[in-house]
Protein backbone atom coordinates (compact mmCIF):
# COMPACT_ATOMS: atom_id res chain seq x y z
CA UNK A 1 0.00 0.00 0.00
CA UNK A 2 1.20 3.48 -0.81
CA UNK A 3 2.01 5.87 1.96
CA UNK A 4 -0.64 8.57 2.45
CA UNK A 5 0.05 11.80 0.63
CA UNK A 6 1.12 14.93 2.50
CA UNK A 7 -0.47 17.01 -0.20
CA UNK A 8 -0.21 18.40 -3.71
CA UNK A 9 2.45 20.88 -4.69
CA UNK A 10 2.24 23.43 -7.51
CA UNK A 11 5.31 25.21 -8.78
CA UNK A 12 5.30 28.79 -10.07
CA UNK A 13 7.93 30.91 -11.75
CA UNK A 14 7.11 34.34 -10.34
CA UNK A 15 5.88 35.80 -7.08
CA UNK A 16 2.91 37.35 -8.88
CA UNK A 17 1.67 33.93 -10.01
CA UNK A 18 2.06 32.60 -6.48
CA UNK A 19 0.13 35.49 -4.95
CA UNK A 20 -2.67 35.06 -7.48
CA UNK A 21 -2.75 31.31 -6.86
CA UNK A 22 -2.95 31.68 -3.09
CA UNK A 23 -5.89 34.07 -3.50
CA UNK A 24 -7.77 31.59 -5.69
CA UNK A 25 -6.94 28.69 -3.38
CA UNK A 26 -8.34 30.62 -0.46
CA UNK A 27 -11.52 31.62 -2.27
CA UNK A 28 -11.95 27.99 -3.35
CA UNK A 29 -12.19 27.16 0.37
CA UNK A 30 -8.88 25.42 1.01
CA UNK A 31 -7.46 26.28 4.42
CA UNK A 32 -4.59 23.81 5.03
CA UNK A 33 -2.35 25.61 2.61
CA UNK A 34 1.20 26.86 2.70
CA UNK A 35 3.34 28.78 0.23
CA UNK A 36 7.11 28.57 -0.09
CA UNK A 37 9.30 31.27 -1.53
CA UNK A 38 13.00 32.14 -1.66
CA UNK A 39 12.30 35.65 -0.43
CA UNK A 40 9.74 37.25 1.86
CA UNK A 41 6.65 38.34 -0.10
CA UNK A 42 4.63 40.83 1.87
CA UNK A 43 1.52 40.39 -0.28
CA UNK A 44 1.21 36.73 0.71
CA UNK A 45 0.38 37.89 4.20
CA UNK A 46 -2.89 39.28 2.82
CA UNK A 47 -3.60 36.85 0.00
CA UNK A 48 -3.23 33.85 2.32
CA UNK A 49 -5.11 35.59 5.15
CA UNK A 50 -2.29 34.89 7.56
CA UNK A 51 -2.64 36.26 11.08
CA UNK A 52 -0.15 38.84 12.31
CA UNK A 53 2.79 37.36 14.13
CA UNK A 54 2.31 37.07 17.87
CA UNK A 55 6.05 37.28 18.34
CA UNK A 56 6.13 40.91 19.61
CA UNK A 57 4.09 40.16 22.73
CA UNK A 58 6.57 37.50 23.84
CA UNK A 59 9.41 39.90 23.17
CA UNK A 60 7.70 42.57 25.23
CA UNK A 61 7.55 40.32 28.25
CA UNK A 62 11.11 39.16 27.67
CA UNK A 63 12.29 42.75 27.66
CA UNK A 64 10.17 43.58 30.68
CA UNK A 65 11.67 40.67 32.59
CA UNK A 66 15.16 41.82 31.61
CA UNK A 67 14.52 45.41 32.66
CA UNK A 68 12.77 44.72 35.95
CA UNK A 69 15.02 41.79 36.76
CA UNK A 70 18.15 43.80 35.98
CA UNK A 71 17.11 46.82 37.99
CA UNK A 72 15.96 44.61 40.87
CA UNK A 73 19.25 42.71 40.83
CA UNK A 74 21.28 45.92 41.05
CA UNK A 75 19.11 47.26 43.87
CA UNK A 76 19.41 43.99 45.73
CA UNK A 77 23.21 43.93 45.29
CA UNK A 78 23.60 47.53 46.45
CA UNK A 79 21.16 47.53 49.32
CA UNK A 80 21.04 43.97 50.62
CA UNK A 81 23.77 41.68 49.40
CA UNK A 82 26.78 43.96 49.37
CA UNK A 83 26.10 47.54 50.47
CA UNK A 84 29.08 49.77 49.71
CA UNK A 85 29.55 53.42 50.59
CA UNK A 86 30.96 54.97 47.42
CA UNK A 87 31.83 58.61 47.99
CA UNK A 88 28.84 59.04 50.30
CA UNK A 89 26.31 58.27 47.58
CA UNK A 90 22.99 56.79 48.67
CA UNK A 91 22.69 53.02 48.42
CA UNK A 92 19.79 53.57 46.06
CA UNK A 93 21.79 55.59 43.51
CA UNK A 94 19.44 54.42 40.81
CA UNK A 95 20.72 56.73 38.07
CA UNK A 96 23.93 54.75 37.85
CA UNK A 97 21.92 51.53 37.48
CA UNK A 98 20.28 52.68 34.25
CA UNK A 99 22.98 51.55 31.79
CA UNK A 100 23.01 47.96 33.04
CA UNK A 101 19.20 47.90 33.29
CA UNK A 102 19.01 49.00 29.66
CA UNK A 103 21.56 46.43 28.50
CA UNK A 104 19.75 43.60 30.28
CA UNK A 105 16.43 44.71 28.79
CA UNK A 106 17.89 44.47 25.30
CA UNK A 107 19.68 41.21 26.07
CA UNK A 108 16.59 39.42 27.31
CA UNK A 109 14.36 40.90 24.60
CA UNK A 110 16.82 39.85 21.90
CA UNK A 111 17.26 36.32 23.19
CA UNK A 112 13.47 36.01 23.53
CA UNK A 113 13.06 37.15 19.93
CA UNK A 114 15.38 34.42 18.74
CA UNK A 115 13.91 31.68 20.93
CA UNK A 116 10.34 32.63 20.02
CA UNK A 117 11.12 32.81 16.31
CA UNK A 118 12.63 29.35 16.37
CA UNK A 119 9.75 27.97 18.42
CA UNK A 120 6.99 29.59 16.32
CA UNK A 121 8.51 28.27 13.10
CA UNK A 122 8.79 24.83 14.65
CA UNK A 123 12.52 24.72 13.97
CA UNK A 124 14.85 22.93 14.07
CA UNK A 125 13.01 20.43 11.89
CA UNK A 126 15.42 18.27 9.91
CA UNK A 127 12.71 16.35 8.03
CA UNK A 128 9.66 17.74 6.32
CA UNK A 129 7.59 16.06 3.58
CA UNK A 130 7.97 18.96 1.12
CA UNK A 131 11.66 18.10 0.78
CA UNK A 132 10.60 14.82 -0.86
CA UNK A 133 9.82 16.69 -4.08
CA UNK A 134 13.12 16.93 -5.96
CA UNK A 135 12.32 20.31 -7.50
CA UNK A 136 11.64 21.78 -4.07
CA UNK A 137 15.39 22.44 -3.88
CA UNK A 138 14.64 25.47 -6.03
CA UNK A 139 12.38 26.94 -3.34
CA UNK A 140 15.46 28.40 -1.70
CA UNK A 141 16.84 29.86 -4.92
CA UNK A 142 14.38 30.92 -7.58
CA UNK A 143 11.04 29.07 -7.64
CA UNK A 144 7.73 29.55 -5.81
CA UNK A 145 5.68 26.67 -4.46
CA UNK A 146 2.18 26.19 -3.16
CA UNK A 147 1.08 23.13 -1.19
CA UNK A 148 -2.46 22.05 -0.41
CA UNK A 149 -2.27 19.51 2.38
CA UNK A 150 -4.23 16.28 2.21
CA UNK A 151 -5.62 16.97 5.68
CA UNK A 152 -7.73 19.76 4.25
CA UNK A 153 -11.39 18.64 4.31
CA UNK A 154 -11.86 19.78 0.70
CA UNK A 155 -8.80 17.86 -0.49
CA UNK A 156 -9.46 15.33 -3.19
CA UNK A 157 -6.55 13.98 -5.16
CA UNK A 158 -8.21 14.25 -8.56
CA UNK A 159 -10.27 17.40 -8.14
CA UNK A 160 -7.59 19.33 -6.27
CA UNK A 161 -5.08 18.45 -8.97
CA UNK A 162 -7.46 19.65 -11.66
CA UNK A 163 -8.03 22.84 -9.73
CA UNK A 164 -4.30 23.45 -9.30
CA UNK A 165 -3.81 22.92 -13.02
CA UNK A 166 -6.18 25.80 -13.73
CA UNK A 167 -3.74 28.15 -11.94
CA UNK A 168 -1.16 27.72 -14.73
CA UNK A 169 1.58 26.18 -12.62
CA UNK A 170 4.86 25.04 -14.09
CA UNK A 171 4.21 21.61 -12.63
CA UNK A 172 1.96 19.88 -10.09
CA UNK A 173 3.51 17.09 -8.05
CA UNK A 174 2.45 14.78 -5.26
CA UNK A 175 4.17 15.26 -1.92
CA UNK A 176 4.80 11.96 -0.15
CA UNK A 177 4.64 12.10 3.59
Amino acid at each position, binding site marked *: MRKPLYGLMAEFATPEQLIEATEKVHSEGYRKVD*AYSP*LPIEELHHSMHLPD*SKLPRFVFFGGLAGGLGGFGLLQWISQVAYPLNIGGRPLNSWVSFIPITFELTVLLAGLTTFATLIAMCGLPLPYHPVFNVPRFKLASSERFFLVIESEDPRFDLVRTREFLNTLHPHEVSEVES
Partner: protein
Amino acid sequence: MADNVDLRTGTTGSGVQAGPVPVLAPGHNYESVSESIAAVPLKQGWPKFWLVGFTATFCIMMMLFATIGGLVFKGIGLWGPNVPVGWGFDIINFVWWIGIGHAGTLISAILLLLKQQWRMSIARFAEAMTIFAVACALLYPTFHTGRPWLAYWMLPYPNTMGMWPQPRSPLLWDVFAVSTYATISIVFWYVGLIPDLATMRDRAKSRFAQVAYGMLALGWRGSAKHWVHYETASLLLAGMSTPLVLSVHTVVSFDFAVGLLPGWHATIFPPYFVAGAIYSGFAMVLTLAIPMRSWYKLKDFITAKHIDNMCKVMLATGLIVAYGYFMEAFMAWYSANGWETFMFKNRTTGPYGWSYWSLILFNVLIPQVLWFGWARKNVALVFVVSLIINIGMWLERFVIIVTSLHRDFLPSSWGMYYPTQYDWSFYIGSIGMFLCLMYIFIRVLPSISIFEVRTLVPRETKGGHH
Protein backbone atom coordinates in the same frame (compact mmCIF):
# COMPACT_ATOMS: atom_id res chain seq x y z
CA MET B 1 10.29 44.71 1.66
CA ALA B 2 8.94 48.03 0.60
CA ASP B 3 8.06 47.37 -2.98
CA ASN B 4 5.56 49.65 -4.62
CA VAL B 5 4.66 47.24 -7.35
CA ASP B 6 1.17 47.14 -8.75
CA LEU B 7 0.66 43.41 -8.83
CA ARG B 8 -2.57 43.44 -10.77
CA THR B 9 -1.07 45.02 -13.84
CA GLY B 10 2.46 43.85 -13.22
CA THR B 11 3.83 47.32 -13.82
CA THR B 12 6.68 48.63 -11.79
CA GLY B 13 8.79 51.70 -11.60
CA SER B 14 12.15 51.77 -13.31
CA GLY B 15 13.31 48.73 -11.38
CA VAL B 16 15.67 48.99 -8.47
CA GLN B 17 15.94 52.30 -6.67
CA ALA B 18 15.68 55.74 -8.05
CA GLY B 19 18.92 57.33 -9.11
CA PRO B 20 21.34 56.86 -11.94
CA VAL B 21 23.58 54.25 -10.29
CA PRO B 22 21.75 51.07 -9.27
CA VAL B 23 22.43 49.14 -6.07
CA LEU B 24 22.15 45.93 -8.07
CA ALA B 25 23.63 45.75 -11.54
CA PRO B 26 20.95 45.35 -14.23
CA GLY B 27 20.15 42.01 -15.83
CA HIS B 28 19.99 39.89 -12.69
CA ASN B 29 17.24 37.42 -11.87
CA TYR B 30 16.70 35.21 -8.81
CA GLU B 31 18.81 32.38 -10.12
CA SER B 32 21.75 34.55 -11.17
CA VAL B 33 21.78 36.30 -7.79
CA SER B 34 21.72 33.00 -5.93
CA GLU B 35 24.37 31.53 -8.18
CA SER B 36 26.81 34.44 -8.09
CA ILE B 37 26.83 34.74 -4.30
CA ALA B 38 26.59 31.07 -3.38
CA ALA B 39 29.35 30.18 -5.83
CA VAL B 40 31.98 31.93 -3.70
CA PRO B 41 31.95 29.30 -0.95
CA LEU B 42 30.57 26.43 -3.01
CA LYS B 43 32.40 26.52 -6.32
CA GLN B 44 35.44 28.74 -6.20
CA GLY B 45 37.48 26.29 -4.14
CA TRP B 46 40.77 27.58 -2.81
CA PRO B 47 41.90 30.49 -4.97
CA LYS B 48 45.52 31.55 -4.69
CA PHE B 49 44.79 34.96 -3.16
CA TRP B 50 42.71 33.27 -0.49
CA LEU B 51 45.41 30.75 0.40
CA VAL B 52 48.10 33.42 0.54
CA GLY B 53 45.97 35.82 2.58
CA PHE B 54 44.72 33.15 4.94
CA THR B 55 48.18 31.71 5.56
CA ALA B 56 49.70 35.12 6.21
CA THR B 57 46.97 36.26 8.58
CA PHE B 58 46.93 32.87 10.30
CA CYS B 59 50.65 33.24 11.06
CA ILE B 60 50.05 36.73 12.43
CA MET B 61 47.28 35.32 14.59
CA MET B 62 49.75 32.77 15.95
CA MET B 63 51.91 35.71 17.03
CA LEU B 64 48.93 36.91 19.08
CA PHE B 65 48.58 33.51 20.72
CA ALA B 66 52.29 33.41 21.51
CA THR B 67 51.97 36.85 23.11
CA ILE B 68 48.98 35.66 25.11
CA GLY B 69 51.05 32.70 26.27
CA GLY B 70 53.75 35.09 27.45
CA LEU B 71 51.22 37.30 29.22
CA VAL B 72 49.68 34.37 31.03
CA PHE B 73 52.98 32.82 32.12
CA LYS B 74 54.95 35.99 32.90
CA GLY B 75 52.25 38.54 33.64
CA ILE B 76 51.16 41.81 32.10
CA GLY B 77 54.41 43.49 33.08
CA LEU B 78 55.43 42.49 29.55
CA TRP B 79 53.23 45.35 28.38
CA GLY B 80 54.24 49.00 28.56
CA PRO B 81 51.48 50.55 30.72
CA ASN B 82 52.68 51.69 34.12
CA VAL B 83 52.13 54.65 36.45
CA PRO B 84 51.11 57.25 35.35
CA VAL B 85 49.86 55.75 32.05
CA GLY B 86 48.02 52.71 33.39
CA TRP B 87 45.89 52.38 30.26
CA GLY B 88 48.03 51.96 27.20
CA PHE B 89 47.62 49.92 24.05
CA ASP B 90 45.17 47.56 25.69
CA ILE B 91 42.49 50.20 26.14
CA ILE B 92 43.40 52.12 22.97
CA ASN B 93 42.93 48.97 20.93
CA PHE B 94 39.86 47.87 22.86
CA VAL B 95 38.11 51.13 21.99
CA TRP B 96 39.43 51.00 18.42
CA TRP B 97 38.07 47.51 17.79
CA ILE B 98 34.71 48.16 19.45
CA GLY B 99 34.36 51.27 17.31
CA ILE B 100 35.08 49.32 14.13
CA GLY B 101 32.32 46.93 15.06
CA HIS B 102 29.75 49.68 15.13
CA ALA B 103 29.41 50.03 11.37
CA GLY B 104 28.08 46.49 11.08
CA THR B 105 25.18 47.12 13.43
CA LEU B 106 24.54 50.52 11.95
CA ILE B 107 24.26 49.03 8.47
CA SER B 108 22.18 46.05 9.51
CA ALA B 109 19.89 47.75 12.03
CA ILE B 110 19.63 51.51 11.63
CA LEU B 111 19.68 51.48 7.84
CA LEU B 112 17.09 48.69 7.87
CA LEU B 113 14.74 50.83 9.93
CA LEU B 114 15.39 53.72 7.55
CA LYS B 115 14.58 51.42 4.60
CA GLN B 116 17.90 52.06 2.90
CA GLN B 117 17.94 49.20 0.42
CA TRP B 118 21.60 49.69 -0.49
CA ARG B 119 22.48 48.26 2.92
CA MET B 120 21.38 44.76 1.88
CA SER B 121 24.46 43.68 0.00
CA ILE B 122 26.97 44.94 2.54
CA ALA B 123 25.08 44.12 5.75
CA ARG B 124 26.12 40.49 6.03
CA PHE B 125 29.85 40.92 6.00
CA ALA B 126 29.67 44.17 7.96
CA GLU B 127 27.90 42.17 10.69
CA ALA B 128 30.56 39.47 10.50
CA MET B 129 33.11 42.26 10.84
CA THR B 130 31.26 43.46 13.95
CA ILE B 131 31.43 40.07 15.61
CA PHE B 132 35.10 39.54 14.82
CA ALA B 133 35.99 43.09 15.88
CA VAL B 134 34.17 42.65 19.20
CA ALA B 135 36.00 39.35 19.69
CA CYS B 136 39.32 41.15 19.17
CA ALA B 137 38.23 43.97 21.47
CA LEU B 138 37.32 41.58 24.28
CA LEU B 139 40.83 40.12 24.27
CA TYR B 140 42.25 43.37 25.63
CA PRO B 141 40.35 43.89 28.89
CA THR B 142 40.32 40.12 29.45
CA PHE B 143 44.10 39.84 29.40
CA HIS B 144 44.59 43.22 31.02
CA THR B 145 42.93 41.82 34.15
CA GLY B 146 46.12 39.80 34.53
CA ARG B 147 44.14 36.77 35.64
CA PRO B 148 41.84 36.10 32.70
CA TRP B 149 40.79 32.76 34.17
CA LEU B 150 38.95 34.76 36.84
CA ALA B 151 37.21 37.04 34.35
CA TYR B 152 33.85 35.61 35.41
CA TRP B 153 34.24 37.49 38.69
CA MET B 154 33.01 40.52 36.78
CA LEU B 155 29.56 38.92 36.44
CA PRO B 156 27.01 39.03 39.25
CA TYR B 157 26.61 35.48 40.51
CA PRO B 158 26.27 34.05 44.01
CA ASN B 159 29.69 32.96 45.20
CA THR B 160 31.35 31.64 48.33
CA MET B 161 33.30 34.89 48.74
CA GLY B 162 30.04 36.73 49.36
CA MET B 163 31.18 39.41 46.89
CA TRP B 164 29.18 41.25 44.24
CA PRO B 165 30.28 43.59 41.46
CA GLN B 166 29.96 47.34 41.94
CA PRO B 167 27.09 48.57 39.76
CA ARG B 168 28.03 52.26 40.06
CA SER B 169 31.23 51.76 38.08
CA PRO B 170 31.32 52.51 34.34
CA LEU B 171 33.71 49.59 33.99
CA LEU B 172 30.93 47.25 35.06
CA TRP B 173 28.52 49.01 32.71
CA ASP B 174 31.04 48.22 30.03
CA VAL B 175 31.05 44.53 30.89
CA PHE B 176 27.29 44.43 30.35
CA ALA B 177 27.28 46.70 27.30
CA VAL B 178 29.96 44.81 25.40
CA SER B 179 28.76 41.32 26.31
CA THR B 180 25.17 42.20 25.38
CA TYR B 181 26.41 43.75 22.15
CA ALA B 182 28.40 40.64 21.28
CA THR B 183 25.46 38.34 22.06
CA ILE B 184 22.82 40.32 20.19
CA SER B 185 25.13 40.84 17.21
CA ILE B 186 25.64 37.08 16.94
CA VAL B 187 21.88 36.44 17.25
CA PHE B 188 21.04 39.06 14.62
CA TRP B 189 23.70 37.72 12.29
CA TYR B 190 22.58 34.13 12.67
CA VAL B 191 18.90 34.96 12.17
CA GLY B 192 19.86 36.75 8.96
CA LEU B 193 21.85 33.74 7.82
CA ILE B 194 19.13 31.10 8.24
CA PRO B 195 17.39 31.50 4.82
CA ASP B 196 20.77 31.74 3.08
CA LEU B 197 22.02 28.64 4.83
CA ALA B 198 18.98 26.86 3.38
CA THR B 199 20.03 28.11 -0.06
CA MET B 200 23.53 26.79 0.54
CA ARG B 201 22.15 23.45 1.72
CA ASP B 202 20.06 23.08 -1.43
CA ARG B 203 22.85 24.12 -3.80
CA ALA B 204 25.74 22.26 -2.19
CA LYS B 205 27.04 19.26 -4.12
CA SER B 206 29.18 17.52 -1.53
CA ARG B 207 27.53 15.49 1.20
CA PHE B 208 29.58 17.17 3.92
CA ALA B 209 28.50 20.66 2.83
CA GLN B 210 24.87 19.57 2.52
CA VAL B 211 24.84 18.18 6.05
CA ALA B 212 26.78 21.08 7.56
CA TYR B 213 24.67 23.80 5.97
CA GLY B 214 21.55 21.72 6.54
CA MET B 215 22.15 21.51 10.27
CA LEU B 216 22.87 25.23 10.50
CA ALA B 217 19.76 26.05 8.43
CA LEU B 218 17.62 24.25 11.05
CA GLY B 219 15.31 22.89 8.34
CA TRP B 220 14.26 26.29 6.97
CA ARG B 221 11.95 25.82 4.00
CA GLY B 222 10.79 29.35 3.17
CA SER B 223 7.21 28.85 4.29
CA ALA B 224 5.06 31.97 4.01
CA LYS B 225 3.91 31.44 7.60
CA HIS B 226 7.53 31.43 8.74
CA TRP B 227 8.42 34.50 6.70
CA VAL B 228 5.79 36.48 8.61
CA HIS B 229 7.46 35.62 11.93
CA TYR B 230 10.86 36.05 10.39
CA GLU B 231 10.25 39.56 9.09
CA THR B 232 8.74 40.57 12.44
CA ALA B 233 11.74 39.18 14.29
CA SER B 234 14.20 40.97 11.99
CA LEU B 235 12.43 44.25 12.52
CA LEU B 236 12.35 43.79 16.29
CA LEU B 237 16.02 42.86 16.42
CA ALA B 238 16.84 45.92 14.32
CA GLY B 239 14.77 48.07 16.63
CA MET B 240 16.62 46.73 19.65
CA SER B 241 20.06 46.89 18.09
CA THR B 242 19.67 50.56 17.20
CA PRO B 243 19.67 51.93 20.75
CA LEU B 244 22.03 49.12 21.74
CA VAL B 245 24.74 50.16 19.31
CA LEU B 246 24.43 53.78 20.37
CA SER B 247 24.62 52.73 24.01
CA VAL B 248 27.75 50.64 23.60
CA HIS B 249 30.14 53.38 22.60
CA THR B 250 28.37 55.77 24.95
CA VAL B 251 29.18 53.42 27.81
CA VAL B 252 32.73 53.03 26.51
CA SER B 253 33.05 56.82 26.56
CA PHE B 254 31.73 56.81 30.16
CA ASP B 255 34.81 54.80 31.11
CA PHE B 256 36.62 58.07 30.48
CA ALA B 257 34.03 60.81 30.89
CA VAL B 258 32.96 59.73 34.39
CA GLY B 259 36.58 60.05 35.54
CA LEU B 260 37.85 63.44 36.66
CA LEU B 261 40.95 63.61 34.49
CA PRO B 262 41.31 66.70 32.28
CA GLY B 263 40.92 65.51 28.70
CA TRP B 264 38.43 62.82 29.76
CA HIS B 265 35.89 64.60 31.90
CA ALA B 266 33.78 66.05 29.09
CA THR B 267 30.08 65.87 28.23
CA ILE B 268 30.86 65.82 24.50
CA PHE B 269 32.32 62.33 24.85
CA PRO B 270 29.28 60.09 24.25
CA PRO B 271 28.12 61.55 20.90
CA TYR B 272 31.68 62.15 19.80
CA PHE B 273 32.62 58.53 20.54
CA VAL B 274 29.57 57.16 18.76
CA ALA B 275 30.26 59.26 15.65
CA GLY B 276 33.91 58.22 15.74
CA ALA B 277 32.89 54.58 16.02
CA ILE B 278 30.70 54.78 12.93
CA TYR B 279 33.42 56.72 11.13
CA SER B 280 36.06 54.06 11.76
CA GLY B 281 33.59 51.25 11.15
CA PHE B 282 32.68 52.47 7.68
CA ALA B 283 36.35 52.96 6.95
CA MET B 284 36.97 49.32 7.85
CA VAL B 285 33.99 48.14 5.77
CA LEU B 286 35.49 49.92 2.76
CA THR B 287 38.96 48.60 3.50
CA LEU B 288 37.57 45.07 3.38
CA ALA B 289 34.85 45.44 0.73
CA ILE B 290 36.98 47.05 -1.96
CA PRO B 291 39.43 44.14 -2.32
CA MET B 292 36.72 41.52 -1.74
CA ARG B 293 34.38 42.78 -4.47
CA SER B 294 37.17 42.77 -6.98
CA TRP B 295 38.75 39.42 -5.99
CA TYR B 296 35.45 37.58 -5.90
CA LYS B 297 33.87 39.52 -8.80
CA LEU B 298 31.01 40.81 -6.71
CA LYS B 299 30.93 44.25 -8.29
CA ASP B 300 27.34 43.66 -9.43
CA PHE B 301 26.29 43.59 -5.80
CA ILE B 302 28.69 46.03 -4.15
CA THR B 303 28.41 48.75 -6.74
CA ALA B 304 29.85 52.24 -7.13
CA LYS B 305 26.65 53.42 -5.46
CA HIS B 306 27.55 51.57 -2.25
CA ILE B 307 31.04 53.02 -2.16
CA ASP B 308 29.65 56.47 -2.83
CA ASN B 309 27.09 56.16 -0.01
CA MET B 310 29.64 54.84 2.46
CA CYS B 311 31.96 57.72 1.62
CA LYS B 312 29.16 60.15 2.36
CA VAL B 313 28.49 58.49 5.73
CA MET B 314 32.21 58.74 6.51
CA LEU B 315 32.26 62.37 5.51
CA ALA B 316 29.28 63.19 7.75
CA THR B 317 30.53 61.29 10.80
CA GLY B 318 34.03 62.62 10.19
CA LEU B 319 32.69 66.15 10.44
CA ILE B 320 30.99 65.30 13.76
CA VAL B 321 34.30 63.95 15.00
CA ALA B 322 36.05 67.13 13.82
CA TYR B 323 33.45 69.12 15.73
CA GLY B 324 34.36 67.05 18.80
CA TYR B 325 38.04 67.98 18.41
CA PHE B 326 37.08 71.61 18.01
CA MET B 327 34.84 71.50 21.09
CA GLU B 328 37.64 70.03 23.18
CA ALA B 329 39.85 72.94 22.20
CA PHE B 330 37.07 75.45 22.72
CA MET B 331 36.15 74.12 26.16
CA ALA B 332 39.77 74.13 27.21
CA TRP B 333 39.74 77.87 26.58
CA TYR B 334 36.14 78.70 27.52
CA SER B 335 36.12 76.80 30.83
CA ALA B 336 39.00 79.00 32.03
CA ASN B 337 40.12 75.93 33.94
CA GLY B 338 43.90 75.84 34.28
CA TRP B 339 44.09 72.05 34.17
CA GLU B 340 41.99 71.89 31.01
CA THR B 341 44.03 74.62 29.35
CA PHE B 342 47.26 72.88 30.24
CA MET B 343 45.95 69.55 29.01
CA PHE B 344 45.16 71.02 25.61
CA LYS B 345 48.48 72.84 25.38
CA ASN B 346 50.31 69.68 26.34
CA ARG B 347 48.29 67.64 23.88
CA THR B 348 49.14 69.92 20.96
CA THR B 349 52.68 71.01 21.79
CA GLY B 350 53.90 68.48 24.39
CA PRO B 351 56.01 65.38 23.78
CA TYR B 352 53.06 63.62 22.11
CA GLY B 353 52.20 66.62 19.92
CA TRP B 354 53.06 64.62 16.80
CA SER B 355 50.17 62.25 17.52
CA TYR B 356 47.66 65.10 17.82
CA TRP B 357 48.69 66.76 14.58
CA SER B 358 48.80 63.46 12.67
CA LEU B 359 45.31 62.82 14.00
CA ILE B 360 44.07 66.15 12.65
CA LEU B 361 45.73 65.43 9.31
CA PHE B 362 44.39 61.86 9.02
CA ASN B 363 40.93 62.31 10.46
CA VAL B 364 39.98 65.86 9.58
CA LEU B 365 41.99 67.20 6.64
CA ILE B 366 42.59 64.29 4.26
CA PRO B 367 39.02 62.88 4.35
CA GLN B 368 37.68 66.25 3.11
CA VAL B 369 38.61 65.00 -0.36
CA LEU B 370 35.41 62.92 -0.14
CA TRP B 371 33.39 66.07 -0.79
CA PHE B 372 34.25 65.61 -4.46
CA GLY B 373 32.37 63.17 -6.66
CA TRP B 374 35.48 62.29 -8.64
CA ALA B 375 37.21 61.22 -5.43
CA ARG B 376 34.33 59.00 -4.34
CA LYS B 377 34.34 57.36 -7.79
CA ASN B 378 38.07 56.62 -7.61
CA VAL B 379 38.06 53.27 -5.82
CA ALA B 380 41.81 53.17 -5.24
CA LEU B 381 41.71 56.61 -3.66
CA VAL B 382 38.74 55.65 -1.46
CA PHE B 383 40.67 52.58 -0.33
CA VAL B 384 43.67 54.70 0.67
CA VAL B 385 41.47 57.24 2.45
CA SER B 386 39.73 54.44 4.36
CA LEU B 387 43.11 53.11 5.53
CA ILE B 388 44.12 56.62 6.58
CA ILE B 389 40.91 57.00 8.60
CA ASN B 390 41.55 53.66 10.30
CA ILE B 391 44.95 54.91 11.39
CA GLY B 392 43.52 58.30 12.31
CA MET B 393 40.88 56.78 14.56
CA TRP B 394 43.54 54.68 16.25
CA LEU B 395 45.55 57.87 16.84
CA GLU B 396 42.47 59.52 18.32
CA ARG B 397 42.27 56.89 21.05
CA PHE B 398 46.03 57.13 21.56
CA VAL B 399 45.74 60.90 22.01
CA ILE B 400 42.77 60.69 24.36
CA ILE B 401 44.29 58.01 26.58
CA VAL B 402 48.02 58.63 26.60
CA THR B 403 48.24 62.42 26.44
CA SER B 404 45.58 62.81 29.13
CA LEU B 405 47.18 60.34 31.52
CA HIS B 406 50.86 61.08 31.11
CA ARG B 407 50.70 64.60 32.59
CA ASP B 408 47.83 65.08 35.01
CA PHE B 409 47.52 67.27 38.09
CA LEU B 410 50.85 66.65 39.83
CA PRO B 411 54.05 67.31 37.87
CA SER B 412 55.86 64.95 40.24
CA SER B 413 53.82 62.07 38.84
CA TRP B 414 54.35 62.88 35.18
CA GLY B 415 55.88 60.29 32.92
CA MET B 416 56.01 58.86 29.43
CA TYR B 417 54.45 55.76 27.91
CA TYR B 418 56.38 53.58 25.51
CA PRO B 419 54.68 50.50 24.08
CA THR B 420 56.83 47.38 24.29
CA GLN B 421 57.25 44.73 21.61
CA TYR B 422 54.49 42.75 23.37
CA ASP B 423 52.09 45.67 23.03
CA TRP B 424 52.83 45.69 19.33
CA SER B 425 52.72 41.92 18.83
CA PHE B 426 49.38 41.75 20.66
CA TYR B 427 47.96 44.59 18.55
CA ILE B 428 49.27 43.37 15.20
CA GLY B 429 48.32 39.83 16.20
CA SER B 430 44.75 40.89 16.85
CA ILE B 431 44.58 42.46 13.37
CA GLY B 432 45.81 39.10 12.07
CA MET B 433 43.10 37.27 13.98
CA PHE B 434 40.44 39.64 12.65
CA LEU B 435 41.55 39.22 9.04
CA CYS B 436 42.00 35.48 9.42
CA LEU B 437 38.44 35.14 10.70
CA MET B 438 37.24 37.27 7.78
CA TYR B 439 39.03 34.97 5.33
CA ILE B 440 37.38 31.92 6.90
CA PHE B 441 33.99 33.64 6.87
CA ILE B 442 34.20 34.59 3.20
CA ARG B 443 35.24 31.06 2.32
CA VAL B 444 32.50 29.17 4.17
CA LEU B 445 29.43 31.43 4.35
CA PRO B 446 27.62 33.61 1.81
CA SER B 447 29.22 36.99 2.41
CA ILE B 448 26.26 38.84 0.92
CA SER B 449 22.69 38.27 2.05
CA ILE B 450 21.24 36.31 -0.87
CA PHE B 451 17.58 36.47 0.08
CA GLU B 452 17.72 40.22 0.67
CA VAL B 453 19.42 40.86 -2.65
CA ARG B 454 16.65 38.79 -4.31
CA THR B 455 14.19 41.41 -3.12
CA LEU B 456 16.16 43.95 -5.16
CA VAL B 457 15.55 42.06 -8.39
CA PRO B 458 13.04 44.12 -10.35
CA ARG B 459 9.72 42.35 -10.46
CA GLU B 460 9.24 42.45 -14.24
CA THR B 461 12.35 40.39 -14.93
CA LYS B 462 11.67 38.02 -12.07
CA GLY B 463 11.42 34.36 -12.80
CA GLY B 464 14.52 34.25 -14.95
CA HIS B 465 14.86 31.58 -17.57
CA HIS B 466 11.72 29.76 -18.51
